[in-house]
């Protein structure tokens, strides 16, 4: 997500913005992971019904969350991290409410 942003402004160094980016990764990364896992639970293979699928859905949360958290410092600034991840959250949660009905 940030690779293309980096191209536009090659020279401007990335700002650390520790509080903003860490918050975005820790909190918005987690909420995004819940929403994506939820979408997979409803719209993924088999739908919501299969027994034991909930376990797999639960296991999806940590890898998604941790991946977002791990790469969140690649955003150029804390504000951009909050905006992008906030937007991704809105999209994912909207989709979750849609498929959940």
């Amino acid at each position, binding site marked *: 997500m940030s690779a293309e942003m980096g191209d536009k402004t090659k020279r401007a160094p990335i700002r650390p913005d520790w509080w903003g980016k860490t918050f975005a990764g820790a909190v918005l990364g987690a909420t995004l992971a819940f929403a994506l896992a939820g979408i997979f639970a409803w719209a993924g293979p088999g739908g919501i019904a299969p*027994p034991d699928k909930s376990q797999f859905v639960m296991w999806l*949360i940590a890898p998604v969350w941790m991946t977002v958290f791990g790469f969140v410092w690649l955003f150029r600034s804390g504000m951009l991290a909050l905006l992008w991840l906030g937007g991704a959250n809105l999209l994912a949660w909207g989709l979750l409410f849609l498929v959940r009905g």
Partner: protein
Amino acid sequence: MKIRSDILRIYQAVHTWGGICAGMLLFIGFFGGALTMFKEPLDRWVSAPTVSASPLAPAQVDKVVADVLAAYPAAREEFTLHVARHENTPAPVSWQAGESGHEIDFGLVRWQATLDGQGALAVEQVKPSLLAQLIDMLHRTGGIPGTLGEEYFGIYVMGVAGVLYFLALVSGVVLLLPTLVKDFFALRAGKNRKRFWLDAHNILGITSLPFHIVISLTVVVFAFHDQFYDGLRGIVYRERPMFVPPAIHNVPGDATKLLPASELVRRVQQQAPGFEVTELLYMGVESPRPIVRAAVASPRHVVQGAETGFVILQPYTGDILSTSMLPGQGNTWSAMVAPFFALHFGSYGGVTVRWLYFVFGLAGAALFYTGNLLWIEKRRKNQLKNGPLPAQPLRTALIASATVGVCLGSVAGIGACMVAAKWLHAFNAHANDAYPTVYYAIFLACVAWAFARGAARAGRELLVACAVTALAIPVTSVAGALVPALNMWAHTSPATLGVDATALVLAGLFAWAARLAARRAAQGPADSVWANATDAAQAAPEAVRKVGT
């Protein structure tokens, strides 16, 4: 691969701070985790021998079950039938009063039953070994005491450490990418000590990267799965059931009509050919939902438990209720979840993988230890040529002391528990009650020692202490075997001899490390926190002179 320097700078900070905050906790987690690979041998090693009854025929085992259920209501709630019997499970049937919680109950009492020489029920109160459980608790909590809700508080702290650990892995790889080809497997042992530690740290990290990714993610899940499930229940599943409860049999069972245990074992074996049935856990035999959880072990399958897979049966009809925790027979979803557990527990591939995980676990502990050493070395002030020794910042000295004390203290503490178990028995005391006291006393003493003596001396001395403690493990066994009057013992099964042998090897490794640390303290750069001079008066004239030589 080129990575911009501003990115590298940020990830350098993520790596060092994530690492330094979680490193010591992860050391205890990894050292304890390596040992839990051999939970069963450890418990067998530490269990005092009992007069074992001659092996019982299946019909006799069934008689034990029937007599126990008739006479002991607590067993009707839950009891275990030990199909595979070892030093730590000498009797065929055992049970306890009340449910066991998440916490270890160091005063736990169980009853075990077998038949005496005349064929009558012989019941004995026992305190089963909690050594492996203690090590497992230290592995999961880092030894942080206290509870939060029903769970150890330390589990959540370890979960946070797991998050930091994953971040340290990502950032470590990002840092290494630009020079990966050049640095990979280059172990430069020249004059630059920092370079050497960095190379060692990188090799350990990169060669076991997949293992570390798996461990860090599973640690996060194990710590927070309740919160994850609660979240999913609230926002995703809502009123839909997330789990399918086992079928209810409306008629409460009559414990006298249970199928013979041998018949249940036969049905499990039919369902799981190639597996060894190790134990049957009977739950609520007189409740409306009686079940038996049969533990099945096989070195050739990925199992979901820490050691075994499971088959769930109905104890009156012998119907198989669930095979979702039996490798290869669950549905697609449970089959996809099993590897997550197995990859953490190393419960695939039998003893070979257990040894591999043991080595990876110790290597992981070394990764965090070297990481902290790097952090410390990087922050030291260098001595100018022929200049006086600079005063080192207090925080590096403190972190160095903490690293040495916490890491080596946990090692010595666990070793001391094992040694104490047999010696306490010699004095007619039971080790279970003493484990927390012994562990925390040794651990805290080591930490205090490290701060009092400074990192350089304490590092050497505590390594010697670890070596002595580890050596005391086989020595105690030998003493028990040679001098029966001591009222100790030495088991001779390969698994328990393996415990003694491994302790001996570790003793050798600690002694070797102590020698290296001693040499380093005497001959290394005097401006390091690992030099003797730093501990003593800051500008000891001798040390200054030594630099020139």
